[in-house]
C-alpha cells in the first residue's frame, strides 16, 4: 500500500490543527473580552465555514489566491511561492474547515468562566496575560482540548476545499480522502477500502475523545 497520501494527511492535519489551536485561542481570548453583541458577530464569522459548501469556500479561496492577485503577490514575497496547488494549500483548506469546530467548543468554555474570578485576579495584581495563563486556561482546558480533537478529526477528512485549492496531485497534494476518491473512480476497491477504514476509525476515535471531554462537566476539584 502506498503510504504517501496517509502521511501527507497526517502532516497536513497536525500542522493545520496546531495553527487552529494557536489562532483559535487568540481569537477566543480576544472575543471573551468583547461585549456579547460584538462577540456574536465574531462567532458568526468564525463559524461561517460550517454553513458554506466546501466547494464554495474553495472557489472563493481560489479566486483570492489565484496567480497574479495582490494576496498571491504578498504570499509569494513572503514564502517565495504561490499557495495554490501546493501542500500548504491543503493546510489552509483544513484550517478553514476545522476552525469553526475549535471555536464552537472553546468559546463557551471561556464564556462559562465566572467574571468575578477575572475581576478578583485583576485586583490581585495580575496582567491579562497572567489571568489567561493562570485562571482562564486551567478552567477552560477541557473545552480547548475537546475543540482541538474535533478540529483534528475534521482536518483528517477534509476533501472539498482541498480539492479546489490544493488540487489532487499524487505524491504532492493528494491527501488520503482524495486518494480514496481516485481509487474508487479507477475501480481499486481494496485500496479504497483499507484507506477508508483507517480514516473512519481515526475520525471516530478523535470525535469520541472530543465529545467525551466536552461532556465531562465535573472537575476533579469540584466533586
Amino acid at each position, binding site marked *: 500500500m502506498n503510504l504517501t497520501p496517509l502521511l501527507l494527511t497526517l502532516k497536513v492535519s497536525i500542522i493545520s490543527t496546531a495553527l487552529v489551536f494557536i489562532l483559535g485561542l487568540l481569537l477566543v481570548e480576544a472575543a471573551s473580552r468583547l461585549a456579547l453583541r460584538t462577540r456574536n458577530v465574531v462567532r458568526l464569522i468564525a463559524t461561517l465555514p460550517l454553513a458554506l459548501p466546501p466547494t464554495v469556500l474553495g472557489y472563493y479561496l481560489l479566486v483570492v489566491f489565484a496567480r497574479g492577485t495582490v494576496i498571491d503577490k504578498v504570499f509569494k514575497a513572503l514564502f517565495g511561492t504561490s499557495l495554490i496547488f501546493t501542500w500548504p494549500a491543503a493546510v489552509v483548506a483544513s484550517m478553514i474547515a476545522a476552525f469553526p469546530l475549535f471555536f464552537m467548543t472553546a468559546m463557551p468554555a471561556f464564556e462559562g468562566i*465566572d467574571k*468575578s*474570578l477575572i*475581576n*478578583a*485576579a*485583576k*485586583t*490581585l*495584581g*495580575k*496582567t491579562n496575560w497572567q489571568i489567561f495563563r*493562570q*485562571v482562564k486556561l*486551567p*478552567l477552560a482546558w477541557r473545552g480547548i482540548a475537546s475543540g482541538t480533537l474535533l478540529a483534528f478529526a475534521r482536518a483528517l477528512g477534509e476533501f472539498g476545499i482541498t480539492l479546489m485549492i490544493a488540487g489532487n496531485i499524487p505524491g504532492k497534494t493528494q491527501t488520503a480522502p482524495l486518494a480514496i476518491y481516485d481509487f474508487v473512480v479507477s475501480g481499486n476497491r481494496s485500496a479504497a477500502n483499507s484507506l477508508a477504514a483507517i480514516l473512519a476509525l481515526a475520525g471516530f476515535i478523535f470525535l469520541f475523545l472530543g465529545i467525551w471531554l466536552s461532556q465531562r462537566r465535573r*472537575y476533579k*476539584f*469540584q*466533586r
Partner: protein
Amino acid sequence: MIKVDIQKVFPKFKLQAKFTADCKMIVIFGPSGAGKSLTLQALAGLIKPDAGRIRVGDQTFFDSETGLNQPPRQRRIGYVLQEYALFPHLTVAENIAFGLKGLTRWAKRSKVDEMLKLMRLQGLEDIYPAKISGGQKQRTALARALIIEPKALLLDEPFSALDSAVREKLRLDLSQIKQQYDIPIIMVTHNLEEAYQLAEQMVIIDEGRVLQSGKSSDIFYHPINRTVARFVGAKNIFTGYVFKITNGDTVIDTGGFKTTIGTRSELSVGDKVGFCIRPEDVMVIRPDKVLGFGVKKNLFPGRIVGTSHRGDSCLLQFKLEKSVSNRDFDFTIKLPAHAYQRLELHKYPTVTVSLKKQAIHVFGADTTADNRPLTAVKGTGSGNDSRPRTVDRR
C-alpha cells in the same frame, strides 16, 4: 483618607457617588440596586467612571481631568467579592498565595502560613474551595486579599451568605483585621444592624446617589430626609406644618395630631416640615400610671392594634384614638422584651404614648425623595418596612 466623586451613566442607571471618609471602617448602606457594588468596583478599578476623581490615601487612582485611570492591578486594593470568587482550580493555600509576586517559594510559604493562622484556616491548605464551608471560603477570600498588603480593603456584602453564628465570628475577625492592618475597610451592606454595629462612618446611597454621609449615630438620629429616615429604620415618619410657636415651643400639626418639638428657631408658623421618631423612643404609658409633673405634652391616647415578638424585643403597632389615617396603625413602638412583659399591656384597652421632644428629629419636608411616587420607593430589604402611607402624605 478616601475621596470619591464619580459619575457613570449606564443604559438604565446613573451612578453619582460622592463622599469623603477619614476613618477605618466605612459602611456603604442602601437597598439592592442602589449602586453600592458599582461604587466598590469603581474604587477597585474594575469599572471606569465617565467623570470624577478617586483618591485613596495619598494616591489618586482616577482623575478624568488628567486622564488618569490606574488599572486594578496597580491599585493594590483588597477586594472580597460577594460570592468570594475563589479560584475553583486552586487549593486554599494556592488561592491565598495567588496575589504574591517576586518572592521565593519559602517566603511565599511562610506568608501563607501566617495568613492561614490569622484566618483560622490551618489544616485546610490543600483542600479545594468547593469542599469548605461558607465561613471558611470567606476567610480564604479575606486572606487572599490581605496578603498583598492592600491600601484599602473592600468587602461586598460580607455577611449576606453566612448564617448567624458565622456572622458573629466574622464580626470579630473584622475587628481583629481592623486592629492588625492600618488600612481603611469599606464595606457594602443592606443590613441595617450590621451597618450600625460596624460603621465608624456610614454612606447612605440610593438610586446611584449618596443621600447622606457621616457618623452612624448622626445618621441614625438625624437623617436629612425621609428616605434616609426610612432606610435607618426610623419607622415613625410624618410631615406637617408649623401650627404655632408659643414660649419657644414649636407645635407641628400633621393633620392627625399635634405635637410639640421644642425650640426650633429656624422654623416659623406655616412652614412645611418632616419629622421622625425612632420606634424605641416612643414611650408607652399605662392608664393607671400617675404622670409626673411636666409630662403633659405630646401625650396621645389610643390602642395597641398589633404585636410582633422579635426575641429580645417587641414591636407594637399603635393606633391613635382620634386617628384620621386609613392605615392600620399610626406609630410603631419598640420595647425590650422584658419591658413588654412587665407592662402587661394586654390588660388595658387603651394606653397612652408619649413622644419625647428631644427624640423628635425634624428635617425639611421638601426633599427630592419626598416627591417620588410611593411605588418607586424601594424597601431596605428587611421586609418589615412600615412606612407611613397616608398620615404624612396629605
